């Protein structure tokens, strides 16, 4: 039961959506784009969302695309994690998405929503970070493209009124050797104690993490350490761990110490599997 009211709009084009946003914003409605709505509804129940209008992006044609175009795999921000899993065009993304929440909820959670929400885990973002994909954004200033690692830095870096339409993922990377690890405290359907996505781009093994810090991330320093083939895997892992961007999370899922223990074990086995 959401204890407050808001209006609902489902525009048919990106232009309409952006214009609507500006309009509603000017009226003081504090509009929100609405993807799967799972976060808006569950936080709304607790009165933790402050909005007078939601703009559902699921009828915007660009947001529903999932196909190869030229040398890219294009996935719309409104595509659900289940659709990604079923199509399996980018197996690492399919796998990571299939461990977010649970299967039925994946029928609702969108790729854009998982990235743009307030949840600290955003696990389906990890494969995107690894591909350096391009994000296609519509906004009051028109459309723009930007690399995902610019659009996501600890948080989503969007200007007011901007909406993510699509991700353009380099086709060359979608079938690269990869590993996905999600560890939970106990129950499998749970927030991660840690999630690691790793992908061997040919030149190096790229790593993205969730659950270790207050945000998902990919770290140059850690990747460098992990790809330092002059050292044995377990030294590389130790070195990488010393480069964490912020102190290891210590929370309900796990203590920092145990998390470090699991992280190290996982890194070593990923290195063994993917080489690098």
């Amino acid at each position, binding site marked *: *039961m959401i*204890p407050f009211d808001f209006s609902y709009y489902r525009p048919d084009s990106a232009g309409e959506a952006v214009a609507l946003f500006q309009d509603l914003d000017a009226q003081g409605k504090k509009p929100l784009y609405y993807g799967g709505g799972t976060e808006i509804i569950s936080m709304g129940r607790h*009165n933790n969302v402050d909005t007078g209008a939601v703009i559902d992006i699921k009828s915007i044609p660009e947001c529903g695309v999932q196909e190869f175009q030229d040398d890219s795999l294009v996935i719309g921000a409104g595509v659900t994690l289940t659709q990604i899993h079923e199509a399996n065009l980018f197996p690492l993304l399919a796998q990571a998405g299939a461990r977010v929440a649970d299967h039925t909820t994946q029928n609702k959670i969108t790729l854009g929503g998982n990235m743009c929400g307030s949840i600290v885990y955003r696990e389906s973002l990890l494969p995107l970070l690894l591909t350096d994909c391009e994000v296609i954004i519509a906004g009051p200033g028109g459309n723009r493209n930007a690399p995902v690692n610019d659009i996501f830095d600890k948080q989503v870096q969007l200007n007011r009124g901007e909406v993510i339409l699509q991700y353009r993922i380099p086709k060359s990377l979608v079938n690269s050797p990869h590993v996905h690890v999600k560890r939970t*405290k*106990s*129950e*499998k359907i749970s927030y991660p104690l840690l999630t690691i996505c790793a992908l061997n781009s040919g030149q190096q093994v790229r790593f993205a993490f969730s659950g270790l810090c207050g945000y998902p991330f990919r770290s140059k320093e850690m990747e460098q350490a992990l790809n330092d083939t002059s050292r044995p895997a377990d030294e590389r892992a130790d070195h990488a761990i010393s480069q964490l961007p912020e102190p290891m999370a210590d929370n*309900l899922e796990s203590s920092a110490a*145990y998390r470090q223990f699991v992280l190290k074990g996982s890194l070593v086995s990923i290195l063994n599997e993917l080489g690098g």
Partner: protein
Amino acid sequence: MQFLAVGKSVIRKEAWEKVTGQAKYTADISSPELLYGVIVTSTCAHGNIKQIDIETARSMPGVRAVITGDYYPILTGSVIKDRPPLASGKVRYYGEPVAVVVADTEAEAAAAALQVKVSYEELPTVNSPAEAIKANAPLLHEFVDQYQKSIPEVYPQANSNVVHHVKIRKGDLNKGWEDAEVVVEGSFTLPMSDHIAMETRNAMAHILSDGKIIIRTSSQAPFPVRKMISEQFGRDLGDVIVHVPLVGGAFGGKASVELEYLAVLASQAVGGRKVIISISREQDIASFPVKIALEARIKLGARRDGTLTAGEYTYLVGTGAYAESGPRMANAMAMSCTGPYKLDNVWCDALCVYTNHTYATAFRGFGHGSMTFAVERMMDKLAAALKMDPVQIRRKNAVKPGDTTPTQVELTESNLGNLQACIDKAETLINWEQGQVQYVGENKILARGVACFWKTSSSPTDALASAVVTFNSDGSANLQVGAVEIGPSTKTTLAQILAEKLSLDISRIHVEMEVDTGHSPHHWKTVASMSTFMVGRAVEEAADDALKQLLSLAAIAMVCAPEDLMVENGRIAYKDNPQEYIEFADIAHGYKHANGSTVGSQVIGRGSFVMPHLSPMDQETGKGKPGPYQTPGAQAVEVELNTADYTYRILKAVTVLDAGRVINPKAAQGLVMGAMSMGLGLATREELVFNQKQELSNTSLRTYKVMHIGQQPEYIVDWVETPNKAGPYGARGLAEHGILGIHAALLNALSKAAGVELDQLPVYAETIWKKVEEGRS
């Protein structure tokens, strides 16, 4: 003996309603007249209420009333009256109800509830059972000794957080220690956890202009609801009518009277209009009763051959902020404190103490599960100290007819059952002969663990059940009982007993699923795995009563003495000439002679049952007979531990229990498996986590984790059937028992596999890792 209905896996009567969505639970009705109540809860774990501002809320759209603790200040509780339904003056746990907002829609009520502003003067908190009994601990209830008692046998201690202390003093403990060649000690901790019935609690009430109070509620205890409401609101029992339709799981959590008070108060505040309060999952966990916490200390003495000589047990039962049935669970632990082992020298102290946490009530197993965890881990420690096989030490000490319980009840084959036989079967089913620990691959250890249990009920000595059987003119029968269908197929099992007694096909027995205290026969409450036993006995008596009537009518019709007749397949036939018979249909509503004149009338059988010869436990020694009989059993688990990261997978879980007689094998098996599943949940993931301010951190199913599909082991259930002479067809209760020792069996296995002592629940991979690390340093 050949049975018609008993021993058959009869499909539950309400099966098709349940698979088609037609089954109606309490909140499955909506009507335009309905108002909605939303509860405002405390954000402070212990504090004086400085001010409650309800003005803004009162003036919000759709709001009809806002009530707080002053509205109708009463104290409630099934053992001791220590709890106001709405906090009054002070709050004692995070989540405690402080106000109810009633509005036209639930959304309006929820919006207004957000505007009720409460300010608190924070008080120091009691954070654990151990802290509760420290000298100078903050007091939750300043005048605990002055509260009105709901039952005489509760012993609160003035100026303390101890609301009850029960003792067992059996034999000569000093002699027991003298005889001991080995002494082992251990301490164990179990956190609070939650029932998580899938149907969250909800209740609906309205008050008619003549004063009648009508309640519809999701409860295991319609008759206690009626009694408490009648007492607290000054009504005749008959003027309180409680309807309970199907209940979506309960596990003890719906056995106390909670939301019903609030629903009645809310209705009263709006002139008797119908109000429903359906709480959220978050409130269900944080605000309404949960499972007790336990801190246990056990010291055992034994001879070198494994024979137990002395046992000393201390159970600190954390009941949270209010007693509810906590004191009774302390009794339950004390009365069964040794586990199912022969011990002549026993000393037990079970203390029920307050903490600043959500208050506790009955939970599947009623204290026996927590107690059994401690006892069964202890038996493994003793086995290790003696270098004995864990199965062997249990077999050696297993209780037998002729032994006595801690409360000095003499055990017989009938009231005890056969634990030995259970152990033997469980041992085989878990392949114990393959060894307790096996290395099965790189970093992979396979381990097995066992545990035993026993349980009897701790019901009031006058617990009563009744049943009424009415006949339809076509010869079919209707069964009415006061037991609620909370899931275990109780009503179908009772129908089987009736079918058997009447020799009538089960399809011709119709069972009313809803309980309505206005016309359903009385039943104490649907708890303690006692319904099949108690109500079953009442059904047997009702059937006998009906049969007597049928036989005497048949005797008239068939011109003979009733003794010359017998009952068979819905017919009454001559004993010496079964070819000649009369159908039930021809006499069920009286017998009509050929000339049209009719003798007799509708056949109505009635039966009732009171637990015989129970007596309360003596305050000084615990001597007494708290329950009618035991259900013993043995459990075993096979687990695979990965020593690289300490994750583990449970492969197999076994329960063998002495069911006396299994009336519905598949239903019974399902109950035992479900209970094992819940027990393994407690062992592996379930706990309420309170932060430093004693606020509950995991109030949703996102963070309070229960077992999901795919992680379950293979479950194996088997039976021993030693008839319980007092039970219907020899049956014993079995609905809770699968939970009792399964966590201990798992931890016994894991402790062996990891080479550390795991004495605390739940056990995460991290828990094992930490223990191993501690051991290293």
